[in-house]
């Protein structure tokens, strides 16, 4: 094997491992954050017992999930029942691979981009992988051989397919503005300021409606309140994961939060200017600040997620479909046409 291929493989493996580590930690602490924030919104404390501020709670949860008895009900369709959570988690984790979290930095003469791989169709790759994510949910619902699960699975697949269209169309506006599928180039197109102080992010650059559509569609894609019908616990017990327990359940759980993080990263890259922000200070600071801005924006987006969860009730199934097809889809189409006209001018 030639040397540069070897280097490529080694660097990729290292980066994948690091990304996976960071992502899983982020997933764990997003759960913690959600419990804490929703707790405070609801006059509770959230986790406090394990570690300071309950910071070790995710570890405790993980141990609990690992040590719990892994039940497989007798009437399930076993191969898919086992495969479904794996599919969910694999697709959720894969999509993070093309997300850049900052500028490249240099080790010697080698530029190390802060992402696993920089492909020039990065955005399409994410869309493709997330569109596969529906299989985990749908097959879990079907293979559980449980009526509630089946309804959850049906709801999930219908919902995710429907909202994917709006999701894709809401992104096209940004693509037209940036003229590229590469996430790095999209972020670079958002550098600079209007009149010296308003950052040139897409959200301030005529894509506010696009951002709104993206937000709604993304909530629906990740099955979060107010679109959490596939797992609406008060109607469908737990929807598609009714029959799951222990680590298999934890996989769905991880997949949901990993998807949330992916969506938040994507929103940051596409609408909120990625890692752009004021850069100052010594050289080390200049390397770290973009990452900080990126993480801060992702955090804000996640916070909105949690905030909405603490506030809104849930749609009904027909209303959800009507909202997706009759409101969100025309709106994102209109946004797309308006953007195209504006850019062509």
């Amino acid at each position: 094997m030639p040397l540069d291929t070897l280097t490529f493989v080694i660097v990729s493996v290292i980066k994948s491992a690091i990304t996976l580590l960071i992502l899983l930690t982020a997933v764990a602490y997003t759960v913690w954050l959600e419990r804490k924030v929703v707790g405070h919104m609801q006059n509770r404390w959230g986790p406090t017992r394990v570690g300071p501020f309950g910071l070790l709670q995710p570890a405790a949860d993980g141990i609990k999930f690992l040590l719990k008895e892994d039940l497989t009900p007798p009437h399930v369709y076993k191969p898919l029942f086992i495969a479904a959570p794996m599919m969910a988690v694999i697709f959720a984790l894969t999509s993070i691979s093309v997300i850049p979290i900052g500028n490249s930095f240099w080790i010697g003469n080698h530029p190390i981009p802060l992402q696993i791989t920089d492909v020039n169709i990065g955005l399409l790759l994410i869309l493709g992988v997330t569109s596969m994510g529906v299989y985990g949910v749908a097959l879990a619902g079907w293979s559980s051989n449980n009526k509630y699960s089946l309804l959850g699975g049906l709801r999930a697949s219908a919902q995710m397919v429907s909202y994917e269209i709006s999701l894709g169309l809401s992104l096209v506006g940004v693509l037209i503005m940036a003229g590229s599928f590469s996430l790095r180039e999209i972020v670079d197109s958002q550098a600079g300021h209007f009149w010296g102080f308003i950052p040139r992010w897409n959200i301030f650059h005529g894509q506010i409606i696009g951002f709104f559509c993206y937000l709604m569609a993304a909530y629906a894609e990740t099955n979060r309140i107010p679109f959490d019908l596939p797992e609406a616990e008060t109607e469908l017990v737990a929807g598609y994961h009714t029959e799951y327990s222990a680590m298999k359940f934890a996989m769905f759980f991880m997949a949901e939060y990993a998807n949330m993080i992916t969506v938040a990263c994507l929103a940051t890259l596409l609408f909120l200017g990625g890692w752009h922000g004021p850069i100052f200070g010594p050289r080390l600071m200049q390397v770290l600040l973009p990452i900080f801005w990126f993480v801060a924006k992702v955090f804000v987006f996640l916070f909105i997620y949690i905030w909405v969860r603490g506030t809104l009730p849930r749609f009904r199934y027909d209303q959800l479909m009507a909202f997706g097809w009759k409101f969100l889809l025309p709106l994102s189409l209109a946004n797309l046409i308006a953007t195209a006209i504006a850019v062509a001018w």
Partner: protein
Amino acid sequence: MHLTLFLAFGAVAVAGAINLLAQTHPINSALSLIAVMAALAGEYLLLGAEFVAAVQVIVYAGAIMVLFVFVIMLLNAGVEEHTKGSRVAILLGVPGMLLGSILVAWVVLRHSGTGSVAIGALPGDPRTIGQLLFHDFLLPFEITSVLILIAIMGAVVLASKPQAVQKGRDH
């Protein structure tokens, strides 16, 4: 390297295709087909057709096959039933398929074995494809968009419940 990857993806595709035939439950067949499609997306990537690969995953695996799975779940399709005719079809069809593919392989390998493609041989980036699609192939593009519109309408009409049935339910 190229050959190894080609063979790996090819093996997945072949295994998926055979599994599609071998499985009796439609959901297993659907999953095998998804595997075939994902493997083909890999082949496209090897050929440098990145955009096609992405669209293959998004459209085929992410949309069309989800519809299939959805319908299988909706209709609660069970294991296939076999009739006398179908057994004959299997007896004749499988050897026929093997024979046919061996024949095709022999002819192809024999007569066009000279050409070869390199990894990433195509300039398959979205920009050039877009140029081609919206300039040279504009008319076919528009016609397909009309086609898909008609298909959508047809699907809506077909899948909506007949009026008589709906009235009968309002008791």
